[in-house]
């Protein structure tokens, strides 16, 4: 249970809020690289933690992330012209269609054609601009203090060739904390996603007889780390001498990777606030050892694994709260716990149904919710330590990202972290300089 003040601290991400300040110290994934595919591509609107921006790739290939609105009269630069050096002022940049003011990727105004050339007015005009980079087929933006800007993250999927990963983003209609909490909540898997193999034989949460744990809840361990924490969920198996472990990493502030069984594709999510009532759910399926097969890609693009059926342009899912996620009660009676098709839409149905911002003063956390408790305390603690003491947040060192979530059957009584140390470590290929 959280007080109203604690809930606001946890969920409010706009400029000047403590959590917003914390989150701005991380690189945020904002666009698929294919949304601004080429130098000179049209600008794209982006809303991130309540701030409205336009992102464009100029004709020199620089990526700009600017305040959406022109410094002159506030017209949207989404309608702007992405011009090359072959233009009246000789600069690459985005020109407002209203009166022709033009901005470089770093926000500097470089042309002001409705003022006298020698007035030099333009030199004093600079739009808010944030550093933006392409990395791992995604465009990332950093909105924090420049002097504290960390290197780009090195989550395992960002280091793989394009052929080994499949990335989607989906509009999620709730505060970002609801899906982050949901992805760390291992016990829901035995219920919400029951009979998921009906949708795909490789989705094997039911492996090792975990279904019986509907009656035998898992035991949880949470180990704080320098990057966030590791959650271990231990379930008994049919074999009395072994336990089934699902070990999940949470990497500050919004990243979770999903344990896999055997060599099935891995999954990762990031949940990035658009505003306080919406977020982008980033979904990445990947296989470190090999390129994805055509069959796997076709499956993901049709809404399988951790992806959703959705509009390819707006990223709005087909199943929403407004249409009750197309729940099929016959399916629910016969083969599916929920009657809702798609793993992530089953999650979304629960998380969005809690309200745009869940009222955490009404809840009752049990022993299965220790990761949720740890998540909230860590985020709120770091937000307050940053606000009050200027303590830089954790989880920004790329080397600490070289890890993966796993599942394993271990002999009873062994040290679950030591026994899985090698399995959880990601060997990063040496980059050629």
């Amino acid at each position, binding site marked *: 249970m959280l007080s109203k003040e604690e809930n606001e601290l946890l969920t409010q991400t706009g400029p000047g809020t403590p959590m917003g300040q914390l989150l701005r110290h991380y690189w945020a994934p904002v666009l698929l690289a294919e949304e601004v595919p080429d130098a000179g591509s049209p600008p794209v609107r982006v809303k991130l933690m309540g701030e409205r921006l336009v992102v464009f790739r100029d004709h020199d290939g620089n990526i700009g992330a600017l305040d959406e609105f022109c410094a002159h009269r506030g017209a949207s630069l989404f309608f702007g012209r992405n011009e090359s050096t072959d233009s009246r002022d000789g600069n690459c940049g985005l020109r407002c269609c209203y009166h022709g003011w033009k901005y470089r990727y770093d926000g500097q105004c470089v042309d002001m054609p409705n003022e006298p050339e020698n007035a030099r007015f333009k030199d004093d005009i600079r739009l808010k601009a944030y550093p933006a980079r392409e990395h791992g087929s995604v465009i990332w933006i950093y909105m924090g203090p420049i002097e504290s800007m960390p290197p780009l993250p090195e989550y395992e999927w960002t280091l793989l060739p394009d052929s080994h990963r499949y990335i989607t983003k989906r509009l999620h209609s709730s505060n970002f904390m609801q899906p982050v909490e949901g992805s760390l909540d291992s016990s829901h898997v035995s219920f919400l996603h029951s009979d998921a193999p009906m949708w795909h034989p490789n989705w094997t949460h039911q492996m090792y007889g975990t279904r019986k744990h509907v009656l035998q809840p898992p035991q949880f361990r949470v180990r704080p780390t320098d990057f966030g924490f590791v959650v271990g969920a231990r379930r008994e198996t049919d074999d009395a001498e072994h336990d089934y472990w699902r070990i999940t990493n949470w990497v500050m502030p919004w990243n979770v990777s999903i344990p896999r069984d055997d060599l099935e594709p891995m999954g990762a999510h990031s949940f990035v606030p658009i505003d306080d009532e919406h977020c982008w759910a980033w979904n990445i399926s990947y296989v470190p050892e090999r390129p994805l097969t055509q069959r796997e890609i076709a499956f993901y693009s049709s809404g399988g694994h951790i992806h959703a059926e959705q509009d390819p342009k707006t990223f709005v899912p087909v199943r929403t709260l407004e249409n009750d996620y197309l729940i099929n009660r016959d399916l629910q009676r016969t083969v599916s716990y929920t009657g809702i098709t798609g793993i992530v839409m089953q999650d979304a149905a629960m998380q969005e149904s809690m309200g745009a911002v869940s009222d955490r003063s009404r809840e009752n956390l049990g022993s299965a919710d220790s990761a949720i408790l740890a998540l909230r305390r860590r985020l709120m*603690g770091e937000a307050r*330590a940053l606000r009050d003491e200027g303590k830089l947040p954790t989880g920004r060192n790329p080397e600490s990202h070289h890890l993966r979530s796993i599942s394993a059957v271990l002999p009873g009584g062994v040290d679950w972290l030591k026994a899985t140390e090698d399995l959880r470590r990601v060997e990063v290929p040496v980059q050629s300089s």
Partner: protein
Amino acid sequence: MPPAVAAHSGLTAFEQKLCEWLTLPYTLITMSVETAAGTWSSRAEYAELPGCVAEARSMPEAVDRLEDMRLDLILRSLRSGADVPRETGEAVASGTTGLSRYTISEILERVRLHSSLGPS
């Protein structure tokens, strides 16, 4: 100046050690236990820290009690010149302990306010 900033200026050797030890990570274990016939509680435990097992009606309350036990153990160890058990792994080092509802500066402030918790 915010209270937490003031709390960090001019730390004694005792306080510095306290802040350092508060960042040491331990594995939280939680479970529901039947404490008497038909009566269930949430249990929270740091298996590596002797005596650090707490029970309460709710899990957050059990973790709060557990964190108080850990603080008490650290303070007793500091006073007696003993070390605390350590697991391997990086310290949290973010101004938080990872699981307490208080930041390290806030814990330090509590210790200062309740001088009986400080060095004897």
